[in-house]
């Protein structure tokens, strides 16, 4: 059980600073050395990998594009988990990275031939082509192979979960996915400078803050800015002036302050993927199987989970998600070597990787702006700086070789683009905030905000984009959406076909619906739509942002596997006897016990329900036969602790019970027990059980297994507002219960209690509070199985003790434990109906031959009016009736068999077993009331033939009930 409190994660340097042991990762099986602080993508790039993925539809080569976890280009399978954004995933030693969606390799992908057939795949390809189900059935497996992303392994996720025991998880490494619930006053989404400042300010004003950042390090864009150049005034909430520092230094200083602040919980490597009702944020934290050091996170327990889903309820939300760059539109804009500015800067500054040798920069600033300086420092030769409107296309097949401009061709191996800045507004839209087009800044910016939301930093407003987004040429090689391979041509065609609203355009073309959720393509698709429809950006509007704003794994949503199991207090006793368990709702119940060893064919294993073994056999399974004989001939004991038990107190308890139960219970004498049934307003049978009167104002009620919560709520519902003095307490878990029944039941119990069990002193349908074996019990003399017997209810903690005592006491009388299967046979011989088994949601007491439970002379009760109508209907012969039947031949129909009348199905068997006392199959069936006359015959479908059954209204066993009263 002992887990170390704070184990040092093995072999992982954690942050970028510690350069300890060398790191080797494996890419498609090949070892690749990486540096501390690397991401998977930066390590691969350093080793010369340029193609990181193949596109969804056409298998076009794709390289690093955004470097910030926004685009789909770097998705790979990492340690068995598909679709991992490798550009923001840290390396760790021994990491296994595999490419996706390419055969045999990323460099040479046979499936890239699909690109030649792009003319066959117009927008709305699926809707236009696969209109016949047969065609779809034939083509679907092929498409499934060619299209798509990573593959999910059918094995449990990766290494961490493999040794865990989901059912009894206290050993091993624990589940791969964890859930946790946090509550905070302020949640800040985004760990850039604006988010860090907001978190510090909120903490300083006394709030508890959770700061969420999806990057491996705090600091946002400051981290990858060149040294010595950061401008602006930076005064921290504590007065410390950090102005004049370089970007990375500023980021480090601010991050240090945040980590030091005890009121701030920092969640790194964590994506806030949605805002839900009740100010609930969904946050997914990558834990890398416990290998991370969770830089400064006070919650850093070392879970072995790979991912942790944090349900974060917050009072205030600060959106500091910043802005990202969108991909500009020009021909071949998806070629490897075409890179957004942020990716080039990250490679150069964060990882010391030269992004290329010879670069062209697309920028509106004549000198190429800061990125040009950064690239020069990294040793990249700047071939040219050109404005965006001059760029025509990128040249090359697997990697960029040059570009075509309006002024001629230029050779290069790197094209760095200053993309349009787009505020990351997904959460803002989900919070109910509006977005409006700002012509000045050429961007959609947040407008009205709900009062609990504050937007700071670039998410609130950006440096104006120099130009409005250019819609680009209507070409099949100009990609708007790199996730789903949607081109400008596709969008133009879709608008032409009539999908000219941005929302319908989205649904038809699937633009903005891929893994990037519109980050790369929303703005440009709006621009294309606006141009093609002749509308303004403002009029065109935006698509709707819904959670999740980034892809998350289904495993993380499902969380750790845990299903509550309900065990009776006698569970260990049954286990000791080697019973075969069955599930009854959440309860575990003994289906049967092993037959006595002497008898051949006995088996305690294999939970085949007894009656399903054969339908043409009058041989009971040995174990049922043994258990049956014990009860009918000697004494049997069954655990009935799963029955629901309610304690009802108060002077108005009789009034309440008379109202909700169909019987009259207010006139019961103390110490009496009555069978009682509940119906709803429509007269439908809901539950039945026993009601015992312990005092004038105190009743003890049993309900059927699994129905207790419902019955309790039902009673409380009908109490509500009545102003009665009555309290209902569910005492189910607190009471063990056994039924001791059989001709020797009295002898068995007599030695354990001072209370007389003779019929004169303790008649049938009576109850007594008595000590049995020194344990305070409530004894009910009732007879579900048709023999003299007592149901003992007693405090659960005495369960094992009293069971063992009764078994020992009954040994001389041949006591035997019996399970649910035998109990069902025993009760069937008494023709007792089990509500929910023999009845369903349309059954009423009149048709179910239980008219005796409804006291129609009672002033009123729930369902009375409806039951009166059912009573009247009985006479018309238009209903179905539940009747007992005896088979006229040797067959024993299965439960659920069809009743056949006039060659048509006319009803069904609800329960049927071979009856040892009759020597024939007996059962209960719903049949047309025309057939429901004692002695009348009807047919049941048994194994392809019709078996003859005879109707009976009498119990099959001891019809007068003499044995119950002995």
């Amino acid at each position, binding site marked *: 059980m002992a887990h170390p409190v704070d184990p040092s994660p093995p072999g992982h340097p954690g942050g970028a600073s510690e350069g300890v042991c060398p790191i080797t990762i494996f890419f498609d099986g090949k070892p690749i050395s990486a540096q501390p602080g690397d991401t998977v993508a930066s390590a691969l790039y350093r080793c010369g990998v340029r193609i990181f993925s193949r596109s969804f539809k056409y298998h076009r080569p794709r390289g690093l594009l955004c470097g910030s976890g926004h685009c789909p280009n770097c998705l790979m399978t990492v340690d068995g988990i598909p679709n991992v954004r490798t550009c923001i995933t840290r390396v760790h030693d021994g990491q296994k990275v595999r490419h996706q969606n390419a055969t045999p390799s990323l460099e040479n992908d046979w499936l890239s031939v699909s690109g030649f057939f792009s003319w066959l795949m117009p927008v709305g390809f699926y809707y236009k082509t696969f209109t016949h189900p047969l065609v779809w059935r034939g083509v679907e497996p092929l498409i499934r192979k060619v299209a798509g992303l990573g593959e999910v392994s059918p094995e449990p996720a990766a290494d961490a979960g493999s040794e865990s025991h989901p059912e009894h998880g206290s050993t091993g490494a624990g589940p791969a996915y964890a859930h946790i619930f946090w509550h905070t006053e302020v949640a800040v989404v985004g760990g850039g400078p604006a988010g860090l400042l907001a978190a510090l300010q909120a903490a300083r004003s006394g709030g508890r803050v959770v700061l969420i950042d999806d990057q491996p390090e705090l600091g946002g864009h400051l981290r990858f800015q060149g040294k010595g150049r950061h401008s602006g005034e930076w005064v921290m909430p504590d007065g410390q002036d950090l102005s004049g520092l370089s970007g990375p230094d500023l980021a480090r200083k601010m991050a240090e302050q945040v980590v030091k602040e005890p009121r701030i919980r920092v969640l790194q490597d964590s994506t806030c993927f949605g805002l839900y009702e009740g100010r609930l944020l969904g946050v997914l934290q990558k834990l890398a199987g416990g290998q991370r050091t969770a830089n400064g996170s006070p919650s850093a327990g070392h879970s072995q989970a790979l991912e942790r889903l944090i349900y974060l309820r917050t009072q205030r939300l600060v959106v500091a998600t910043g802005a990202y760059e969108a991909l500009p539109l020009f021909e071949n804009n998806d070629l490897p070597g075409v890179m957004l500015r942020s990716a080039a800067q990250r490679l150069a500054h964060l990882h010391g990787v030269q992004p290329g040798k010879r670069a062209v920069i697309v920028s509106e600033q004549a000198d190429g702006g800061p990125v040009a300086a950064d690239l020069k420092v990294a040793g990249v030769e700047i071939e040219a700086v050109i404005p965006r409107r001059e760029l025509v296309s990128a040249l090359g097949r697997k990697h960029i070789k040059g570009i075509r401009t309006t002024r001629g061709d230029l050779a290069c191996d790197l094209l760095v683009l200053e993309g349009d800045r787009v505020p990351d507004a997904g959460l803002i839209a989900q919070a109910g905030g509006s977005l409006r087009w700002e012509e000045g800044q050429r961007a959609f910016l947040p407008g009205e905000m709900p009062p609990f939301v504050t937007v700071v930093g670039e998410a609130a407003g950006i440096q104006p984009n120099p130009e409005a987004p250019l819609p680009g040429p209507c070409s099949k090689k100009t990609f708007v959406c790199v996730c789903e391979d949607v081109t400008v041509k596709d969008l133009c065609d879709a608008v032409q076909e009539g999908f000219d609203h941005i929302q319908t355009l989205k649904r038809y073309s699937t633009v903005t619906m891929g893994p990037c959720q519109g980050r790369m393509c929303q703005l440009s698709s709006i621009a294309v739509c606006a141009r093609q429809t002749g509308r303004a950006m403002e009029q065109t509007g935006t698509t709707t942002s819904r959670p999740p704003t980034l892809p998350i794994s289904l495993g993380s949503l499902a969380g750790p596997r845990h299903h509550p199991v309900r065990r009776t207090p006698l569970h260990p006793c049954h286990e000791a006897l080697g019973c075969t368990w069955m599930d009854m709702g959440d*309860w575990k119940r003994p289906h049967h016990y092993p037959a006595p060893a002497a008898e051949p064919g006995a088996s305690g294993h294999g939970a085949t329900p007894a009656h399903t073994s054969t339908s043409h056999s009058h041989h009971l399974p040995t174990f049922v036969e043994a258990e049956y004989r014990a009860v009918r001939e000697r004494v049997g004991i069954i655990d009935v602790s799963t029955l629901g038990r309610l304690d009802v107190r108060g002077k108005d308890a009789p009034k309440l019970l008379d109202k909700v139960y169909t019987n009259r219970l207010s006139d019961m004498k103390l110490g009496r027990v009555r069978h009682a049934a509940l119906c709803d307003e429509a007269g439908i049978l809901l539950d039945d059980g026993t009601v015992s009167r312990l005092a004038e104002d105190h009743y003890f009620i049993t309900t059927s297994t699994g129905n207790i919560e419902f019955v309790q709520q039902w009673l409380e519902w009908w109490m509500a507002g009545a102003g009665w003095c009555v309290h209902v307490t569910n005492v189910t*878990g*607190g009471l063990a219960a056994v039924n001791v029944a059989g001709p020797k039941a009295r002898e068995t119990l007599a030695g354990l209690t001072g209370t007389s069990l003779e019929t004169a002193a303790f008649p049938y349908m009576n109850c007594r509070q008595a000590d049995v074996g020194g344990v305070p019990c409530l004894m009910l003399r009732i007879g579900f199985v048709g023999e003299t017997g007592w149901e003992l209810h007693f405090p659960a*903690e*005495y369960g094992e003790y009293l069971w063992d005592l009764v078994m020992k006491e009954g040994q001389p009388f041949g006591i035997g434990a019996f399970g649910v299967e035998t109990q069902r046979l025993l009760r069937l011989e008494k023709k007792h109906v089990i509500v929910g088994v023999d009845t369903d949601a349309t059954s009423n007491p009149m048709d179910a031959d239980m008219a005796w439970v409804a006291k129609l002379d009672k002033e009123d009760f729930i369902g009375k009016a409806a039951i009166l109508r059912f009573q009247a209907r009985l006479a018309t012969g238009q209903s179905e009736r539940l009747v007992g039947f005896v088979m006229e031949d040797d067959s024993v129909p299965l439960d659920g068999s069809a009743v056949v009348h006039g060659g048509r199905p006319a009803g069904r068997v609800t329960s049927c077993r071979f009856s040892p006392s009759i020597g024939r199959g007996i059962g209960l069936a719903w049949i047309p009331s025309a057939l429901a006359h004692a002695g009348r015959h009807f047919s049941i479908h048994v194994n392809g033939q019709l078996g003859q059954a005879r109707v009976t209204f009498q119990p099959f066993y001891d019809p007068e009930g003499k044995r119950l009263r002995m």
Partner: protein
Amino acid sequence: MNRTFAPVRRSALHHPHRLLGAVMETYQGWEMPREFRPAAEEAAHVRSAAGLCDVSWLVKLDVKGRGWTPASSAGHTLDGTVSRWRLAAGHWLVLARPEGGAGALEGLQAAERQLPCLHVTDVTSVYCALLLAGPRSRDVLEKLTSADVSDSGLPNQGAAQAGLAHVHAAILREDRGPLPAYLLLVRRDVAESVWDAVNEAGGEYGLIPFGFSAAEHLGAGV
């Protein structure tokens, strides 16, 4: 009948305790684990990380009805042996060590007679009670319940009813001096399921099971 019997009271977790190697002893009339490892070690570990102790032997009384005010309004713990928790309007839970239990029950029964509609039900057997204690206990709890168990959401001596490991539970905050501690009351039939879930959730925080001996070292609490 002049036979005498020696009934044994067992918690729902009796067998899980024994599987973990607990030393069992009669405590407060129940067979309870004295310790799973040396008690001093257990107590030290709970003080530095987290621990889980079965305190099902606590007497639990369910009090329903209007008009009842606990005998002493001054303190939450009435005399060191009895504590009362307000679960809802007109619904209280009284917890007592067995030595205080009889007195508590008598007091309540007197109130029951005096007040027009007050009912006391002994629910000792209905609930399994677990004491989750230690500086990391809240971290463990946050993995199991969506209820707010922070200092502001559930201050010391506060009570909440919420889902816990997919079952209904009463979560009662009862710190042991400076040590955060929670009493978790769940229905007995799901006790083993919850015990497993808490232990599993606590694994990463170093949670250990501990016995009544170490629990007594941790300080007062009912």
